[in-house]
Protein backbone atom coordinates (compact mmCIF):
# COMPACT_ATOMS: atom_id res chain seq x y z
CA UNK A 1 0.00 0.00 0.00
CA UNK A 2 2.75 2.34 1.07
CA UNK A 3 4.67 1.62 -2.12
CA UNK A 4 1.55 2.35 -4.24
CA UNK A 5 1.08 5.62 -2.32
CA UNK A 6 4.66 6.65 -3.03
CA UNK A 7 4.27 5.81 -6.73
CA UNK A 8 1.06 7.90 -7.07
CA UNK A 9 2.42 10.75 -4.91
CA UNK A 10 5.49 11.29 -7.11
CA UNK A 11 3.68 12.09 -10.42
CA UNK A 12 1.21 14.27 -8.47
CA UNK A 13 4.12 16.24 -6.99
CA UNK A 14 5.72 16.54 -10.44
CA UNK A 15 2.42 17.75 -11.89
CA UNK A 16 2.15 20.30 -9.07
CA UNK A 17 5.69 21.57 -9.73
CA UNK A 18 4.86 21.94 -13.43
CA UNK A 19 1.77 24.02 -12.56
CA UNK A 20 3.87 26.29 -10.33
CA UNK A 21 6.45 26.67 -13.10
CA UNK A 22 3.72 27.42 -15.67
CA UNK A 23 2.15 30.06 -13.39
CA UNK A 24 5.55 31.70 -12.83
CA UNK A 25 6.17 31.81 -16.58
CA UNK A 26 2.67 33.24 -17.13
CA UNK A 27 3.22 35.99 -14.51
CA UNK A 28 6.60 36.96 -15.99
CA UNK A 29 5.20 36.95 -19.52
CA UNK A 30 2.19 39.08 -18.48
CA UNK A 31 4.41 41.64 -16.75
CA UNK A 32 6.70 41.84 -19.79
CA UNK A 33 3.72 42.21 -22.15
CA UNK A 34 2.20 44.99 -20.01
CA UNK A 35 5.60 46.70 -19.89
CA UNK A 36 6.03 46.54 -23.67
CA UNK A 37 2.45 47.76 -24.21
CA UNK A 38 3.10 50.73 -21.90
CA UNK A 39 6.38 51.49 -23.69
CA UNK A 40 4.67 51.49 -27.10
CA UNK A 41 1.52 53.33 -25.96
CA UNK A 42 3.23 56.72 -25.67
CA UNK A 43 1.08 57.48 -22.61
CA UNK A 44 4.13 57.94 -20.39
CA UNK A 45 7.02 60.34 -20.77
CA UNK A 46 9.52 59.16 -23.34
CA UNK A 47 11.99 56.60 -21.99
CA UNK A 48 10.46 56.37 -18.48
CA UNK A 49 9.31 52.91 -19.57
CA UNK A 50 11.69 51.98 -22.43
CA UNK A 51 10.98 49.12 -24.83
CA UNK A 52 12.30 45.74 -23.68
CA UNK A 53 14.65 45.51 -26.68
CA UNK A 54 16.18 48.88 -25.74
CA UNK A 55 16.76 47.70 -22.14
CA UNK A 56 18.25 44.44 -23.42
CA UNK A 57 20.63 46.40 -25.68
CA UNK A 58 21.62 48.65 -22.75
CA UNK A 59 22.18 45.56 -20.59
CA UNK A 60 24.39 44.02 -23.26
CA UNK A 61 26.45 47.17 -23.76
CA UNK A 62 26.79 47.57 -19.97
CA UNK A 63 28.06 44.03 -19.48
CA UNK A 64 30.44 44.17 -22.44
CA UNK A 65 32.19 47.43 -21.52
CA UNK A 66 35.27 47.47 -19.30
CA UNK A 67 34.08 50.64 -17.52
CA UNK A 68 31.29 48.71 -15.78
CA UNK A 69 33.71 46.15 -14.32
CA UNK A 70 36.04 48.92 -13.10
CA UNK A 71 33.12 50.50 -11.19
CA UNK A 72 31.89 47.08 -10.00
CA UNK A 73 35.35 46.31 -8.63
CA UNK A 74 35.38 49.63 -6.72
CA UNK A 75 32.02 48.78 -5.09
CA UNK A 76 33.01 45.16 -4.40
CA UNK A 77 36.22 46.35 -2.70
CA UNK A 78 34.34 48.91 -0.57
CA UNK A 79 31.77 46.34 0.51
CA UNK A 80 34.40 43.61 1.04
CA UNK A 81 36.65 45.77 3.24
CA UNK A 82 33.63 47.24 5.06
CA UNK A 83 32.19 43.77 5.65
CA UNK A 84 35.55 42.57 6.96
CA UNK A 85 35.96 45.50 9.40
CA UNK A 86 32.32 45.55 10.50
CA UNK A 87 32.12 41.75 10.55
CA UNK A 88 35.23 41.15 12.66
CA UNK A 89 34.33 43.91 15.14
CA UNK A 90 30.72 42.69 15.22
CA UNK A 91 31.92 39.14 15.84
CA UNK A 92 34.20 40.21 18.71
CA UNK A 93 31.50 42.39 20.31
CA UNK A 94 28.90 39.63 19.82
CA UNK A 95 31.18 37.04 21.45
CA UNK A 96 31.81 39.35 24.42
CA UNK A 97 28.11 40.10 24.87
CA UNK A 98 27.15 36.46 24.43
CA UNK A 99 29.74 35.27 26.96
CA UNK A 100 29.08 37.85 29.67
CA UNK A 101 25.58 38.44 31.04
CA UNK A 102 26.46 41.75 32.71
CA UNK A 103 27.91 43.19 29.49
CA UNK A 104 24.90 41.93 27.53
CA UNK A 105 22.45 43.55 29.95
CA UNK A 106 24.46 46.78 29.96
CA UNK A 107 25.12 47.23 26.23
CA UNK A 108 23.00 44.93 24.09
CA UNK A 109 19.90 47.15 24.25
CA UNK A 110 21.96 50.01 22.75
CA UNK A 111 22.91 47.80 19.80
CA UNK A 112 19.37 46.44 19.53
CA UNK A 113 17.82 49.89 19.23
CA UNK A 114 20.62 51.50 17.20
CA UNK A 115 20.65 48.59 14.74
CA UNK A 116 17.53 49.50 12.76
CA UNK A 117 18.14 53.29 12.60
CA UNK A 118 18.65 54.70 9.08
CA UNK A 119 22.45 54.47 8.70
CA UNK A 120 22.64 56.84 5.74
CA UNK A 121 22.11 59.79 8.13
CA UNK A 122 25.61 59.05 9.48
CA UNK A 123 27.11 59.70 6.03
CA UNK A 124 27.87 63.40 6.77
CA UNK A 125 29.82 62.27 9.85
CA UNK A 126 31.66 59.62 7.82
CA UNK A 127 32.58 62.21 5.18
CA UNK A 128 34.01 64.46 7.88
CA UNK A 129 35.94 61.61 9.47
CA UNK A 130 37.12 59.68 6.41
CA UNK A 131 36.83 62.10 3.47
CA UNK A 132 34.73 62.06 0.31
CA UNK A 133 36.55 59.12 -1.30
CA UNK A 134 36.86 55.41 -0.70
CA UNK A 135 37.12 55.64 3.13
CA UNK A 136 33.67 57.04 3.85
CA UNK A 137 32.01 54.32 1.75
CA UNK A 138 33.96 51.57 3.55
CA UNK A 139 32.95 53.18 6.85
CA UNK A 140 29.29 53.21 5.80
CA UNK A 141 29.46 49.52 4.86
CA UNK A 142 31.26 48.64 8.12
CA UNK A 143 28.83 50.64 10.27
CA UNK A 144 25.82 49.10 8.53
CA UNK A 145 26.91 45.47 8.91
CA UNK A 146 28.33 45.75 12.43
CA UNK A 147 24.93 45.71 14.20
CA UNK A 148 23.27 42.63 12.65
CA UNK A 149 26.48 40.58 12.93
CA UNK A 150 27.06 41.57 16.59
CA UNK A 151 23.45 40.90 17.59
CA UNK A 152 23.26 37.63 15.67
CA UNK A 153 26.55 36.40 17.18
CA UNK A 154 25.48 37.33 20.74
CA UNK A 155 22.12 35.57 20.32
CA UNK A 156 23.84 32.56 18.71
CA UNK A 157 26.32 32.24 21.54
CA UNK A 158 23.54 32.08 24.11
CA UNK A 159 21.91 29.24 22.16
CA UNK A 160 24.99 26.98 22.25
CA UNK A 161 24.30 23.60 23.80
CA UNK A 162 25.69 23.74 27.37
CA UNK A 163 27.01 20.18 26.97
CA UNK A 164 29.46 21.37 24.29
CA UNK A 165 30.76 24.09 26.60
CA UNK A 166 31.16 21.56 29.46
CA UNK A 167 33.04 19.21 27.11
CA UNK A 168 35.41 22.05 26.17
CA UNK A 169 35.99 22.94 29.82
CA UNK A 170 36.56 19.31 30.79
CA UNK A 171 39.34 19.23 28.16
CA UNK A 172 40.74 22.37 29.86
CA UNK A 173 40.64 24.44 26.65
CA UNK A 174 41.84 28.03 26.95
CA UNK A 175 39.73 31.04 25.85
CA UNK A 176 41.16 31.03 22.28
CA UNK A 177 40.64 27.25 21.91
CA UNK A 178 37.11 27.54 23.34
CA UNK A 179 36.34 30.26 20.76
CA UNK A 180 37.80 28.46 17.75
CA UNK A 181 36.94 24.84 18.66
CA UNK A 182 33.60 25.18 20.48
CA UNK A 183 31.87 28.58 20.14
CA UNK A 184 32.45 29.44 16.47
CA UNK A 185 31.68 25.95 15.02
CA UNK A 186 28.53 25.70 17.20
CA UNK A 187 27.39 29.15 16.05
CA UNK A 188 27.81 28.54 12.33
CA UNK A 189 24.13 29.14 11.44
CA UNK A 190 23.56 32.39 13.39
CA UNK A 191 26.92 33.80 12.25
CA UNK A 192 26.21 33.01 8.59
CA UNK A 193 22.74 34.50 8.99
CA UNK A 194 24.29 37.62 10.55
CA UNK A 195 26.81 37.87 7.69
CA UNK A 196 23.99 37.41 5.15
CA UNK A 197 21.95 40.25 6.66
CA UNK A 198 25.15 42.25 7.22
CA UNK A 199 26.19 41.90 3.58
CA UNK A 200 22.75 43.11 2.47
CA UNK A 201 22.90 46.25 4.61
CA UNK A 202 26.60 46.85 3.86
CA UNK A 203 25.72 46.81 0.16
CA UNK A 204 22.93 49.33 0.73
CA UNK A 205 25.17 51.53 2.92
CA UNK A 206 28.04 51.66 0.41
CA UNK A 207 25.86 52.05 -2.69
CA UNK A 208 23.65 54.78 -1.20
CA UNK A 209 26.78 56.65 -0.14
CA UNK A 210 28.06 56.31 -3.72
CA UNK A 211 24.83 57.76 -5.11
CA UNK A 212 25.11 60.72 -2.71
CA UNK A 213 28.74 61.71 -3.21
CA UNK A 214 31.15 59.76 -5.37
CA UNK A 215 32.82 59.62 -8.76
CA UNK A 216 33.14 55.85 -8.97
CA UNK A 217 31.27 52.66 -8.12
CA UNK A 218 27.92 51.16 -9.14
CA UNK A 219 25.99 53.69 -7.03
CA UNK A 220 27.68 56.47 -8.97
CA UNK A 221 26.74 54.77 -12.27
CA UNK A 222 23.06 54.65 -11.20
CA UNK A 223 22.89 58.32 -10.18
CA UNK A 224 24.91 59.34 -13.24
CA UNK A 225 22.42 57.55 -15.51
CA UNK A 226 19.66 59.47 -13.69
CA UNK A 227 21.47 62.80 -14.09
CA UNK A 228 21.87 62.36 -17.85
CA UNK A 229 18.40 60.77 -18.08
CA UNK A 230 19.72 57.57 -19.65
CA UNK A 231 16.80 55.42 -18.49
CA UNK A 232 17.65 52.20 -20.39
CA UNK A 233 21.12 52.26 -18.83
CA UNK A 234 19.64 52.90 -15.38
CA UNK A 235 17.28 49.95 -15.76
CA UNK A 236 20.18 47.79 -16.95
CA UNK A 237 22.36 48.72 -13.94
CA UNK A 238 19.48 48.14 -11.50
CA UNK A 239 18.68 44.74 -13.05
CA UNK A 240 22.32 43.62 -12.73
CA UNK A 241 22.51 45.01 -9.19
CA UNK A 242 19.35 43.24 -8.03
CA UNK A 243 20.38 39.95 -9.64
CA UNK A 244 23.80 40.16 -7.96
CA UNK A 245 22.39 41.15 -4.55
CA UNK A 246 19.66 38.50 -4.50
CA UNK A 247 22.05 35.88 -5.92
CA UNK A 248 24.77 36.51 -3.33
CA UNK A 249 22.16 36.55 -0.53
CA UNK A 250 20.65 33.25 -1.67
CA UNK A 251 24.16 31.79 -2.16
CA UNK A 252 25.22 32.60 1.42
CA UNK A 253 21.92 31.23 2.74
CA UNK A 254 22.43 28.01 0.76
CA UNK A 255 26.01 27.62 2.02
CA UNK A 256 24.76 28.04 5.58
CA UNK A 257 21.73 25.81 5.05
CA UNK A 258 19.39 28.71 5.92
CA UNK A 259 15.93 29.69 4.75
CA UNK A 260 15.77 32.99 2.91
CA UNK A 261 12.34 34.06 4.12
CA UNK A 262 12.03 37.32 6.09
Amino acid at each position, binding site marked *: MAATGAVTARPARRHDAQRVLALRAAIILTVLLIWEAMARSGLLYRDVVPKLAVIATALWSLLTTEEYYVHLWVTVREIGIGLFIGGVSGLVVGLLLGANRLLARAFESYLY*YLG*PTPKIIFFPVM*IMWFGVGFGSKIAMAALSCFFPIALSTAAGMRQIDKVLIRVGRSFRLNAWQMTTKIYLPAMRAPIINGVRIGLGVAL*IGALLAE*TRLSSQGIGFLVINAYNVFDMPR*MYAILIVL*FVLAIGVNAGIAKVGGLQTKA
Partner: protein
Amino acid sequence: MHVRPRSENTTMTAALRDRVVPLALGLGTLIAALAAVEILIRVGVINGFIVPLPTDVAASFGKVFTEEDIVNRFRLTFLEALAAGAMITVVGVLLGLLLYRVPLLRRATETWVAALASAPTVLLYPLFLVIFGRSASTIIMMGFVAGLPPVILKTVEGLSGIRRVLIDVGRSLKLTPTQLFVKILLPAALPTIFVGIRLGLIFTLINVVGVEFLINFGGLGQLINDLFERYELSETYAAICFVILVSVLFFVITERIERWLRPAQ
Protein backbone atom coordinates in the same frame (compact mmCIF):
# COMPACT_ATOMS: atom_id res chain seq x y z
CA MET B 1 9.15 19.91 52.75
CA HIS B 2 10.25 23.24 54.09
CA VAL B 3 10.17 26.08 51.58
CA ARG B 4 12.19 29.07 52.59
CA PRO B 5 10.38 32.31 51.65
CA ARG B 6 12.45 34.66 49.54
CA SER B 7 13.54 37.53 51.76
CA GLU B 8 13.11 41.13 50.74
CA ASN B 9 16.87 41.55 50.87
CA THR B 10 17.44 38.77 48.34
CA THR B 11 14.85 40.30 45.98
CA MET B 12 16.51 43.70 46.23
CA THR B 13 19.94 42.23 45.61
CA ALA B 14 18.63 40.38 42.58
CA ALA B 15 16.98 43.57 41.24
CA LEU B 16 20.22 45.47 41.83
CA ARG B 17 22.23 42.79 40.03
CA ASP B 18 19.79 42.40 37.12
CA ARG B 19 18.72 45.99 36.48
CA VAL B 20 20.55 48.74 38.33
CA VAL B 21 24.16 47.58 37.86
CA PRO B 22 23.84 46.93 34.07
CA LEU B 23 21.97 50.23 33.59
CA ALA B 24 24.61 52.12 35.55
CA LEU B 25 27.41 50.36 33.64
CA GLY B 26 25.79 51.16 30.26
CA LEU B 27 25.03 54.80 31.04
CA GLY B 28 28.32 55.25 32.89
CA THR B 29 30.32 53.96 29.89
CA LEU B 30 28.39 56.26 27.54
CA ILE B 31 29.00 59.31 29.77
CA ALA B 32 32.67 58.34 30.24
CA ALA B 33 33.12 57.99 26.46
CA LEU B 34 31.54 61.41 25.85
CA ALA B 35 33.70 62.94 28.60
CA ALA B 36 36.81 61.36 27.04
CA VAL B 37 35.89 62.81 23.62
CA GLU B 38 35.31 66.25 25.23
CA ILE B 39 38.76 66.15 26.88
CA LEU B 40 40.54 64.83 23.77
CA ILE B 41 39.04 67.63 21.65
CA ARG B 42 39.93 70.29 24.24
CA VAL B 43 43.56 69.12 24.45
CA GLY B 44 43.74 68.96 20.65
CA VAL B 45 44.12 65.20 20.13
CA ILE B 46 40.83 65.08 18.18
CA ASN B 47 40.27 67.79 15.60
CA GLY B 48 37.46 70.07 16.80
CA PHE B 49 36.63 70.97 13.17
CA ILE B 50 35.69 67.34 12.51
CA VAL B 51 34.17 66.25 15.82
CA PRO B 52 32.34 68.94 17.81
CA LEU B 53 32.46 69.13 21.61
CA PRO B 54 29.70 66.94 23.11
CA THR B 55 28.71 69.93 25.27
CA ASP B 56 28.31 72.05 22.09
CA VAL B 57 26.15 69.32 20.54
CA ALA B 58 23.95 69.26 23.67
CA ALA B 59 23.69 73.05 23.57
CA SER B 60 22.74 72.95 19.85
CA PHE B 61 19.57 70.95 20.53
CA GLY B 62 17.80 74.17 21.57
CA LYS B 63 18.91 75.96 18.39
CA VAL B 64 17.85 73.02 16.20
CA PHE B 65 14.44 73.02 17.87
CA THR B 66 13.83 76.77 17.65
CA GLU B 67 15.54 77.81 14.41
CA GLU B 68 15.17 74.75 12.19
CA ASP B 69 11.40 74.25 12.57
CA ILE B 70 11.96 70.73 13.80
CA VAL B 71 8.35 70.21 14.93
CA ASN B 72 7.05 70.75 11.40
CA ARG B 73 9.84 68.63 9.93
CA PHE B 74 9.04 65.85 12.38
CA ARG B 75 5.34 66.15 11.46
CA LEU B 76 6.21 65.88 7.75
CA THR B 77 8.37 62.76 8.22
CA PHE B 78 5.74 61.27 10.51
CA LEU B 79 2.96 61.86 7.95
CA GLU B 80 5.06 60.39 5.11
CA ALA B 81 5.85 57.31 7.23
CA LEU B 82 2.18 57.09 8.29
CA ALA B 83 0.96 57.21 4.67
CA ALA B 84 3.46 54.54 3.62
CA GLY B 85 2.64 52.53 6.78
CA ALA B 86 -1.09 52.60 6.02
CA MET B 87 -0.39 51.50 2.44
CA ILE B 88 1.86 48.57 3.43
CA THR B 89 -0.73 47.45 5.99
CA VAL B 90 -3.72 47.49 3.62
CA VAL B 91 -1.94 46.22 0.50
CA GLY B 92 0.31 43.78 2.40
CA VAL B 93 -2.54 42.15 4.33
CA LEU B 94 -4.72 41.90 1.20
CA LEU B 95 -1.90 40.37 -0.85
CA GLY B 96 -1.09 38.01 2.03
CA LEU B 97 -4.73 36.97 2.15
CA LEU B 98 -4.69 36.40 -1.62
CA LEU B 99 -1.62 34.15 -1.37
CA TYR B 100 -3.24 32.27 1.53
CA ARG B 101 -6.46 31.74 -0.41
CA VAL B 102 -4.71 30.67 -3.65
CA PRO B 103 -2.08 28.08 -2.62
CA LEU B 104 -0.75 27.70 -6.19
CA LEU B 105 -0.08 31.45 -6.38
CA ARG B 106 1.62 31.26 -2.99
CA ARG B 107 3.92 28.43 -4.11
CA ALA B 108 4.74 30.33 -7.30
CA THR B 109 5.46 33.75 -5.77
CA GLU B 110 6.36 33.44 -2.07
CA THR B 111 10.08 32.99 -2.79
CA TRP B 112 9.93 36.06 -5.05
CA VAL B 113 8.45 38.12 -2.21
CA ALA B 114 11.14 36.77 0.15
CA ALA B 115 13.83 37.70 -2.40
CA LEU B 116 12.33 41.18 -2.68
CA ALA B 117 12.47 41.50 1.12
CA SER B 118 16.24 40.98 1.02
CA ALA B 119 16.82 43.06 -2.13
CA PRO B 120 18.30 46.58 -1.90
CA THR B 121 15.03 48.26 -3.01
CA VAL B 122 16.14 51.65 -1.64
CA LEU B 123 18.51 51.85 -4.63
CA LEU B 124 15.46 52.28 -6.83
CA TYR B 125 15.10 55.86 -5.61
CA PRO B 126 16.57 57.47 -8.78
CA LEU B 127 13.96 55.54 -10.77
CA PHE B 128 11.18 56.75 -8.46
CA LEU B 129 12.55 60.29 -8.81
CA VAL B 130 11.99 60.03 -12.56
CA ILE B 131 8.47 58.66 -12.13
CA PHE B 132 7.18 60.79 -9.22
CA GLY B 133 9.56 63.75 -9.28
CA ARG B 134 11.35 65.28 -6.29
CA SER B 135 8.28 65.14 -4.08
CA ALA B 136 6.70 63.50 -1.03
CA SER B 137 5.21 60.87 -3.41
CA THR B 138 8.71 59.52 -4.15
CA ILE B 139 9.47 59.28 -0.42
CA ILE B 140 6.13 57.61 0.41
CA MET B 141 6.44 55.14 -2.48
CA MET B 142 10.01 54.24 -1.48
CA GLY B 143 8.77 53.60 2.07
CA PHE B 144 5.93 51.52 0.66
CA VAL B 145 8.13 49.34 -1.57
CA ALA B 146 10.61 48.66 1.25
CA GLY B 147 7.99 47.85 3.88
CA LEU B 148 5.61 45.72 1.82
CA PRO B 149 7.35 42.27 1.62
CA PRO B 150 7.51 41.52 5.39
CA VAL B 151 3.78 42.34 5.78
CA ILE B 152 2.86 39.95 2.95
CA LEU B 153 5.11 37.15 4.26
CA LYS B 154 3.99 37.44 7.88
CA THR B 155 0.30 37.68 6.88
CA VAL B 156 0.57 34.41 4.95
CA GLU B 157 2.47 32.85 7.86
CA GLY B 158 -0.09 34.07 10.40
CA LEU B 159 -3.10 32.90 8.38
CA SER B 160 -1.51 29.51 7.65
CA GLY B 161 -0.81 28.98 11.35
CA ILE B 162 -4.45 29.35 12.42
CA ARG B 163 -5.81 26.23 14.11
CA ARG B 164 -8.17 24.29 11.84
CA VAL B 165 -10.80 24.08 14.58
CA LEU B 166 -11.30 27.87 14.58
CA ILE B 167 -12.01 27.90 10.85
CA ASP B 168 -14.35 24.89 11.24
CA VAL B 169 -16.29 26.73 13.96
CA GLY B 170 -16.72 29.69 11.60
CA ARG B 171 -17.91 27.42 8.79
CA SER B 172 -20.33 25.56 11.07
CA LEU B 173 -21.84 28.94 11.94
CA LYS B 174 -22.21 29.50 8.18
CA LEU B 175 -20.16 32.72 8.16
CA THR B 176 -19.68 34.43 4.81
CA PRO B 177 -16.03 34.65 3.55
CA THR B 178 -15.89 38.32 4.70
CA GLN B 179 -17.29 37.43 8.15
CA LEU B 180 -14.86 34.51 8.39
CA PHE B 181 -11.94 36.86 7.62
CA VAL B 182 -13.05 39.67 9.96
CA LYS B 183 -14.25 37.54 12.88
CA ILE B 184 -11.96 34.49 12.78
CA LEU B 185 -8.93 34.74 10.47
CA LEU B 186 -7.84 38.33 11.18
CA PRO B 187 -8.06 38.22 15.01
CA ALA B 188 -6.33 34.81 15.14
CA ALA B 189 -3.50 35.86 12.81
CA LEU B 190 -3.17 39.42 14.16
CA PRO B 191 -0.13 38.86 16.46
CA THR B 192 1.91 37.40 13.58
CA ILE B 193 0.59 39.97 11.10
CA PHE B 194 1.64 42.73 13.49
CA VAL B 195 5.18 41.30 13.62
CA GLY B 196 5.22 41.81 9.82
CA ILE B 197 3.69 45.29 10.08
CA ARG B 198 6.29 46.27 12.70
CA LEU B 199 9.14 44.97 10.53
CA GLY B 200 7.60 46.73 7.53
CA LEU B 201 7.24 49.99 9.47
CA ILE B 202 10.91 49.82 10.49
CA PHE B 203 11.98 49.40 6.84
CA THR B 204 9.53 52.16 5.86
CA LEU B 205 10.90 54.61 8.44
CA ILE B 206 14.51 53.84 7.46
CA ASN B 207 13.69 54.46 3.80
CA VAL B 208 11.59 57.58 4.40
CA VAL B 209 14.33 59.31 6.42
CA GLY B 210 17.06 57.94 4.13
CA VAL B 211 15.40 59.11 0.90
CA GLU B 212 14.61 62.51 2.48
CA PHE B 213 18.34 62.84 3.13
CA LEU B 214 19.35 61.59 -0.32
CA ILE B 215 16.97 63.72 -2.40
CA ASN B 216 17.18 66.70 -0.02
CA PHE B 217 13.42 66.97 0.38
CA GLY B 218 10.94 66.63 3.24
CA GLY B 219 11.46 66.50 6.99
CA LEU B 220 14.15 65.16 9.31
CA GLY B 221 16.39 63.59 6.63
CA GLN B 222 16.53 66.88 4.75
CA LEU B 223 17.33 68.74 7.97
CA ILE B 224 20.53 66.70 8.41
CA ASN B 225 21.46 67.30 4.78
CA ASP B 226 20.77 71.06 5.09
CA LEU B 227 22.82 71.45 8.26
CA PHE B 228 25.70 69.43 6.78
CA GLU B 229 25.73 71.49 3.57
CA ARG B 230 25.86 74.67 5.72
CA TYR B 231 28.67 72.94 7.67
CA GLU B 232 26.98 73.64 10.99
CA LEU B 233 28.89 70.90 12.76
CA SER B 234 27.37 70.64 16.24
CA GLU B 235 23.85 71.21 14.81
CA THR B 236 24.39 68.34 12.30
CA TYR B 237 25.39 66.00 15.15
CA ALA B 238 22.42 67.22 17.25
CA ALA B 239 20.00 66.56 14.37
CA ILE B 240 21.46 63.05 13.88
CA CYS B 241 21.02 62.38 17.63
CA PHE B 242 17.43 63.64 17.37
CA VAL B 243 16.65 61.27 14.46
CA ILE B 244 18.19 58.37 16.42
CA LEU B 245 16.04 59.25 19.45
CA VAL B 246 12.90 59.39 17.29
CA SER B 247 13.77 56.01 15.70
CA VAL B 248 14.44 54.39 19.09
CA LEU B 249 11.17 55.77 20.48
CA PHE B 250 9.34 54.39 17.46
CA PHE B 251 10.89 50.90 17.93
CA VAL B 252 10.07 50.89 21.66
CA ILE B 253 6.41 51.85 21.07
CA THR B 254 5.87 49.29 18.30
CA GLU B 255 7.65 46.64 20.36
CA ARG B 256 5.29 47.32 23.30
CA ILE B 257 2.26 46.96 20.98
CA GLU B 258 3.69 43.69 19.65
CA ARG B 259 4.14 42.35 23.21
CA TRP B 260 0.63 43.50 24.13
CA LEU B 261 -0.80 41.57 21.16
CA ARG B 262 1.26 38.42 21.80
CA PRO B 263 -0.84 36.86 24.64
CA ALA B 264 -3.77 36.64 22.19
CA GLN B 265 -1.81 33.99 20.26
